[in-house]
């Protein structure tokens, strides 16, 4: 599942970064505490978070995330979008809650696994 697929699955809108990136999501981390996100060992993480701040993007860059999804269509600051563009992190705004986004991602992964 690429970031373009994530945008579709989560009814989202790409706010920054490259929406055509071929990188594939390897794991989903849903968390608002950035120290927790930094602890994850998973590769090619998609970060689902309610933290609409520069720090979410900077954390995603540190762990080499495929992209960041902000829930509940929270307003995103210009600086956040700029940091995402500067660091090359695709940033998606989704109207879904974190729970609904997790369920949708889970279903999408299952569907993908079944072919």
């Amino acid at each position, binding site marked *: 599942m690429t970031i373009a697929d994530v945008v579709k699955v989560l009814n989202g809108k790409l706010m920054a970064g490259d929406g055509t990136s071929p990188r594939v999501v390897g794991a989903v981390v849903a968390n*608002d*505490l*950035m*120290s*927790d996100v*930094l*602890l994850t060992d998973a590769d090619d993480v998609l970060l689902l*978070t309610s*933290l609409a*701040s*520069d*720090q*979410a993007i*900077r*954390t995603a*860059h*540190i*762990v*080499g995330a495929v992209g960041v999804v902000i829930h509940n269509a929270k307003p995103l600051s210009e*600086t956040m979008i700029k940091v995402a563009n500067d*660091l090359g992190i695709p940033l998606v705004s989704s109207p879904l809650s974190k729970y609904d986004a997790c369920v949708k991602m889970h279903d999408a992964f299952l569907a993908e696994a079944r072919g």
Partner: protein
Amino acid sequence: MSDYSPTILQGQQTNDDEILAKTPLDAKALGGDSSVVIMELLQRFKVRDVMKRQVLSIPRKATLREAQRILRENHISGLPVSEDGRLYGIISVNDIINGLDHGWMDDTVDMHMASSLVVLEAGMPISFALRYFNNYTYGRFPVLDSNRQLVGIISQRDVMRALLYELSVEIRKLERKTADKVAQPAPPSETHFFRREWAVVHNDLTGAGRAANEIKQLLREKKVDRSVARRIAVAAYELEINICIHSHGGVLVMVISDNAVTITAKDRGPGIPDIEWACRDGTSTANDWIRSLGFGAGMGLSNSKRVADFFEIESEVGKFTKVTCAFNLKKLEAPAGGTAS
């Protein structure tokens, strides 16, 4: 009747050196090269940049009792008397006290207001406002535009807040310049071939993390193993955030040698009284504001320790905290051309 002396603004500006010499920020305090930034700020900033634009006012035919209510409810000590933007006077707490004393509370404010006022114009430099605060005892001045319309009010607090903010911006620029100078590679030695240092500013959570992001990019350019680079960046990020939220500011240093990368975070205090407690998961002195930004859960030091191959922390209360994390390199290709970069 009023605490406002019958002085009318003449409008002319005096010599700027004289202005500076008489303000609390006197010329002596501004002496030397360091004064250039402040003097430039005092000239660059205009009254309109600093004043409050939402001004409470009262019409001429309102009573002293109504004025008293507005002053009390808004915790202010003076109220412009104006109609359709035109300023007629100021009614102050002293006028209200006189009104209570003499039984004038049902009189209209225009009977007792100060009508000869000291005012500032919106386009005047802040240095002019500072001189007025120094020369008069008033805590605030009404601000008029070029059409003599009331457009704002300015207090000493407004000026100090704006100057402190701008000074912090200027100091940050200077710190970054200093960091860039310090960031020159260290002289080549047997082991070190790359060293870089970043200044980390207290409470600058907008900029916090920038150094860690740069560290990760540098490690990628140096072809450091991806998983090791990630661990280094995690430690750098946590330590950078720690300096930002818990200290008075400090530096983050990365040294890459032949077989290891060392990240050192050193701050200028306040120091940690109980290091063992601070290194435990979940212990933190962070406030709600920091937590709202996704940090402050008390995992910074323990996360850094967890990802590092070597971890050391030293601290002296009131002086500094220094954290060192070192990482063994699985694979590091030296830059072309030798061991120095």
